[in-house]
């Protein structure tokens, strides 16, 4: 699989249209990290294995990465979902990115265009794994007071480093709500209320957009299980609007529930 990715990257970079391949490479110790391969002869640095979890779509809107030219990106399904969502939100158009797909069972996928990537990922509806569903169910089974205590304890550990935001491909706003201060919507300090406001706001902004890549949780230095918030929303959306693949915030149907309007 890794060899195929390397070969594909080499071809793309030799072709001249693609200027940079965003993929994973050897990091320090036993870590891997994002690499930006710009020459065909450097493609051998690319790595693909179970450690390659970071959602690389986060780099697509980054100024300095854009400056490198047209990117190809190594994409597992969560990355593909992120690209699809970014296209829904008109951040990218057909032809802007080349996707080197990697399926969940380790196949390297050839996508001639983004349309074919979307067709592929459309067939894989976003659902929670049994473990994830169980974690959400466990929270649901708590009493309101227990749940409040759980979240207060977790969010009180937050230091507002914004690693959750920075690592999320969907958090690409040049000026985040928490940075808008006229009025100051979200309290900036990392006190109890400020933290709670921040995480609720962020989860709500990700409703129907989160691709469940897990980076917010994995990258939190305090290991606050932030993905439980968005996973719960994913479950809710599934229950209320079905598992269809369209962009739930932009799709309106006559049979949509309206019982929240009172």
């Amino acid at each position, binding site marked *: 699989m890794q060899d195929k990715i390397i070969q594909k990257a080499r071809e793309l970079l030799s072709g001249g249209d693609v200027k940079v391949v965003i993929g994973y490479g050897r*990091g*320090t*110790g036993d*870590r*891997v*990290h*994002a*690499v*930006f391969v710009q020459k065909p002869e450097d493609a051998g640095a690319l790595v693909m294995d179970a450690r390659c979890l*970071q959602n690389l779509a*986060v*780099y697509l809107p*980054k*100024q*300095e*990465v854009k400056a490198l030219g047209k990117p190809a990106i190594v994409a597992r399904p969560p990355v593909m979902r992120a690209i699809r969502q970014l296209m829904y939100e008109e951040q990218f158009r057909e032809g802007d990115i080349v996707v080197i797909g990697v399926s969940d069972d380790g196949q390297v996928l050839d996508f001639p265009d983004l349309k074919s990537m979307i067709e592929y990922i459309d067939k894989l509806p976003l659902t929670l794994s049994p473990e994830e569903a169980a974690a959400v169910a466990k929270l649901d089974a708590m009493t309101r007071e227990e749940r409040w205590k759980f979240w207060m*304890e*977790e969010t009180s*550990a937050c*230091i*507002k*480093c*914004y*690693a959750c*935001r*920075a*690592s999320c491909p969907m958090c690409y706003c040049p000026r985040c709500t928490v*940075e808008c201060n006229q009025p100051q919507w979200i*309290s*900036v*300090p*990392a*006190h109890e209320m*400020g933290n709670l406001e921040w995480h609720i706001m962020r989860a709500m902004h990700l409703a129907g957009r989160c691709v469940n890549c897990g*980076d917010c949780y*994995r*990258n939190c*230095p*305090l*290991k606050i299980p932030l993905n439980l918030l968005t996973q719960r929303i994913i479950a809710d959306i599934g229950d209320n609007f079905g598992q269809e693949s369209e962009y739930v915030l932009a799709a309106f149907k006559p049979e949509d529930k309206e019982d929240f309007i009172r």
Partner: protein
Amino acid sequence: MTEKKTIKKSSLDGLFRALKSGGKRVLAPVEGNGRTIFREVDSYNGVAAGYIQTTLSAKDALLPRCEEMLRFRTEQSTVTMEQGPAAPAPTVVFGMRPCDAKSLAVLNAVYLKDYNDELYRARADATTVIAISCTSCDEYCFCTSVGGSPGDTTGSDILLTEIDGDAYLAEILTGKGEALVAMAPDLFAAAGGAKTKPLADVKVQFDLKELEKKLPGSFEGPVWITQSLRCIGCGTCSYVCPACTCFDVQDETDANRGMRLRCWDSCGLGIFTLHTSGHNPRDVQSQRWRQRIMHKFSYQPDQLSVVGCVGCGRCSRACPVDMNILQHIKDIVEAR
């Protein structure tokens, strides 16, 4: 000068209780939910042991992530200042690593130079540090490359080092340390010939002087862009750093009363330097990454005679994208 005593590990609970009943707030590392952080404890039971490094440093005790600076009340158009923050509680921080204790020198240099920051000074004065030497380290540790060591006493009031027989050698380094011992004198015994266990072997990985010499000339170099291309621009490195001191100021109000709060801030965040006009002197991540390294290894040594890094390795461990500071520094030193 330093007085040496021993204390059995089994006596630590007694020490904690004595400190507590003597009016001290005791902070110690507690492990749980995937993090090891300093929390207020009543007893030694449940205090983490065997950690190489805590997830967050004990900086929170001296420079809280969110701290009241002043209080005010507004009545129509007039403002009156209200009684400011209460005096900080006398606090003992137990279980800092020597690198963290050494970071207090950086905090002191920033907060007590020129303008004396009374908020910080009050906390520093009220804090006593019981550090524990390191008998183990990991690939991220590099204290010895920045002038420290696993048994460095800088910044500690008492330094504990493991000895045989499930006990610690206690080096009583300051008057504050002596005062703590005096709160539970029976728990400490004469050191005699107690032999300490071998400390962690932290290899020197780069020449600090070479780095300091090299940095001023490398401001315009390509290394900053190359290294930071994968940086996603969060503040994790600054917030887990025991020696990062930059802050933001935020006013918060509730009806006619309000507070001015000091909050941790990070040069890694774009908004840090953003002017109201929209102009940003450090507009891209490579400039922010350069600032982080320059500030710690060039500007601070130059202006404050301290290195703004103690080699604790937290930023590298916590970085979501493996911005390993040790590797990056080595690459800078070796770059031609």
